[in-house]
């Protein structure tokens, strides 16, 4: 599904050149659940941004479904992104002015989908995530765990085949963290490919495969039997 070949990302300011990714090679197959780990500043988030088509690599090739998307413009990336990728963030990134249902709807809003169809999907995904009774609440009225469920609901409501999760449990306590991980696992079982950045070895255990990054390199890859 994804193939990263010799990927570089270099940040330049006037005086300093920072190499965030230093020749990363990686492959993710359909149905995979991959955890990316590593210390702060090792390039995890940069990698996830590039995988998520939010950013371009400085050098190297990135094949998304056999299509080299590395040189694509923001407009082209945006198109692929909205069809294929759902995002979950550490800080949830829910919009405070919108209700739960409307926050979820956001993911469908830019898909030219009729309102009735949007409604149906939102209702169904909220049922699945157990937040149906919160539909008309504002994010500020929910607990962290509930907020992250909303974010997960938003990531999957469009039936995107790939979910990118950037420390989805980072802002949650252990109980809520575990809940979210269970949610991701069941999504994966239903066929969604998941790439997740995490600091927690316990949560990394939910994945089939762990990629360890250090200073922009892939250091080790461990595969677990599913």
């Amino acid at each position, binding site marked *: 599904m994804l193939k990263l070949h010799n990927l570089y990302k270099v940040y330049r300011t006037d005086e300093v050149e920072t190499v965030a990714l230093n020749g990363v090679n990686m492959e993710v197959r359909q149905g995979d659940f991959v955890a990316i780990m590593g210390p702060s500043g090792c390039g995890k988030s940069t990698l996830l941004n590039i995988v998520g088509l*939010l950013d371009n690599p400085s050098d190297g090739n990135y094949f998304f479904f056999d299509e080299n998307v590395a040189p694509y413009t923001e407009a082209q990336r945006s198109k692929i992104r909205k069809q294929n990728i759902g995002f979950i963030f550490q800080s949830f990134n829910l919009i405070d002015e919108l209700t739960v249902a409307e926050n979820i709807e956001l993911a469908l809003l*830019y898909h030219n989908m009729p309102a009735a169809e949007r409604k149906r999907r939102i209702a169904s995904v909220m049922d699945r995530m157990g937040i149906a009774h919160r539909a008309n609440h504002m994010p500020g009225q929910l607990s962290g765990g509930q907020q992250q469920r909303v974010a997960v609901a938003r990531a999957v409501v469009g039936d995107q085949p790939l979910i990118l999760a950037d420390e989805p449990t980072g802002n949650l306590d252990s109980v809520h963290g575990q809940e979210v991980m269970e949610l991701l696992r069941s999504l994966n079982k239903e066929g969604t490919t998941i790439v997740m950045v995490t600091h927690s070895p316990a949560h990394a255990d939910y994945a089939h495969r762990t990629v360890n990054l250090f200073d922009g390199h892939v250091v080790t890859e461990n595969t677990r039997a599913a």
Partner: protein
Amino acid sequence: MFWNNVKIALRNLRKHKIFAAINVLGLALGLTVYLFGGLLTKYERSHDLFFANADRIVTIGSVAAPELNVGFEWMGTTFTAVAPIIEIEIKDVEAVARSIASEFLVSTGAESFYEGIRFADPALLDIFDFEFLQGDSNALDDPSALLLSESAAIKYFGRTDVRGEVITLDNEFDFHIGAVIRDVPLNSHFRSSLAEEFGIDFVVPVAAFKRMRDQEVDTNWSNLSLGNMTYVLLPEGFTADWLRAQMAGLYERLVPEDQKEVISGFTVSPVVEANTSLWDMIGLPVIDAVALLSFLVLIIACVNYTNLATAQSLGRSREVGMRKTMGASQSQLLTQFLVESLVIATIAMVIAIAALEMIIPVFNNAASKALSLDYLGTLPWLVITTLVVGIFAGAYPAWLITRANPIDALRDVARKGKKGTLMRSIMIGAQFAISAFMLASVSIIYMQNERVKDASYEFPRSEIYVIDRLDIEGISDKLDTLRQELEALPNVEHVAYSWQVPYEQNNATTGLLKNPGDEASEFTLMNLNMTPEFLDTYDIPVIAGRNLSRDIANDRRDDESTTLNVLINELALDKIGAASAQDAINMRFYASNPESKVREFIVVGVVPTQNIVGLFNQKKAWFYHYTPDGLRIASVRISGGNIMTTVDEIEKVWDRVVPEYPIQGRFLDEVFNDVYKILRFMNLALAGFAFIALALALIGLFGLAAFMAAQRTKEIGVRKVLGATSTQIARLLVWQFSKPVMWALFIALPAAYFGSSIYLNFFADRISTQLPILAVAGAIAVLLAWGTIAGHAIRIARADPVLALRYE
């Protein structure tokens, strides 16, 4: 999607209540001013259009010859001799009519009041389609008929079916009512508050004027009174330009040579311009200024909005980032933000309209105008204004916020970085430049107008009660009795009669000769006819020689006089060739008009130069003489005692001596206020504009300072932890906004200097303090800005540093 955007906009408003209030109210204020200015401008420029022939009616005016030196280039009036010539020479015109305005005492059996009478040619009723309640458009064919307005009929008779009733003018001339017309709407030059306040309540045939005033009208080449109008109805398909060409030829061939030194041509103006012709003549672009200023206020309000919205939108960059991550394109997000600003613009527009609905009736009442917010007619304008304001004001923040790539947006890079600060500074600068410009130029205009007012106090205007219209036959032979009885009143100090009193506008000059019979030595002086008591009444000292006296034969002109003793003012010394006031005594000058009976004038006294006509006129050279049969106004100097009681006593004396005519009295103050009206209106309007502009700029600055201070909370916390004092931090915040404000002054003050100089050029007697006023206005703008920001800065600077740090 659209409603989704509207919904978010409304929720955002609710969440940030203070910013929302500032945004909406600021914009609403700007819109109110702009709409009001627009309505007023349109109102003043659309007078008389309800007349069926409005597009074919023109008025004939005169181009002032340079020699005339009257201070304006043209007049909306011409000689009454012109209309008959047009009728004969220009066969194609459909109708020509004059209207001569004059005041008369109007009486029915019970009531009598002084009223403005229009003497008109019968064709006036063909040119203007008045609505007749009684009679018809032939009413003026009968030389003893009178046409009455509905409200005048009700005033005198209490009803409108008054055809055939008799009305007497000046207790002498009887007219029967031939027609009653529906009142002409307020938005007609006939009733305009800008032009002549004469109304069109009584219309009498011109033929009657000849009889009553014993004046030839059809051959009159000497009177250019502003109240006199000449209307022409153009034939279908002919333009004003056509008539202009015809009139030019007519001028060359038929205007008497000596009149060509008075007028150098004719003007032809559409009747729609008649309403504003007075201001056009003076050359003060008052209406354009109102339109421009109200537009500037709207611009300030828009910039205000843009500025605040920009600052505020940075706080929403996470939302934008999220939407972009979800696949929203920049154009979709632009739409979202523009919809938001359109929502705000719409709310502001609704508030502005509501405000106008309250303001307009009050204004109409105070200014006797008939402005109206005709929704059907103005809807396109309102909608377009809303759209333009919403898009114009929202475009920049929308573009700025949606431009960032999704990662930067999610990380809130914009909020932390310097993005947009330059643009924001430029906007604050622009806003302050406009408001400082307005404040400074308005201050100068205001001070100049005040100076005109101050200068008027050279005459004791609040102590003088003037009684007008003494030149009526039934009154003029009782003046001696009247004076003696008035002087006998306990608090009356002096009583003087004269042809005019100070502040009355007058450009009549007298041609005189230095040497008898020598045309080359001709010069002109203004002349004032007055009784000797005039000097005491107006506190005018005699510098050299003596005052005129009732007891010296040559001091007063009678039918036999060939030599007349006169006074001159100091400015006239040079004109008659005198080296000093003392030197002028007993000097002589001579009449240049061969028909004048008086041939020789002898100077017996010199008085200081005063600005008798006031306003923008220069001080002029005058001579003062005493001609008992040309006295029009009494000036009664009152001192001490209860003024109102004294006025009552004066009225009682009047009623006893002249029982046939009501008294036409008022204080000299009111005479001044009449001519000062335009300037006072300007003072008020300009001060209002400047105040609103400055208030908007300060509101904007307040909002922005609040926002930027919130942005820098963390920085402030760190600085405090490192030992910065509250004062240092407050100074930091104040300084951030001071730079654009200072830059604004560099642009605004020179512009104000230039702009106000144009205005000052209208005045002969100018203020010399233009630069200090500019400096003070600039300082006020800066101080207000500092005060506004400092209020915030100090509060934030004082906050606990831990609190400041935790904020992030």
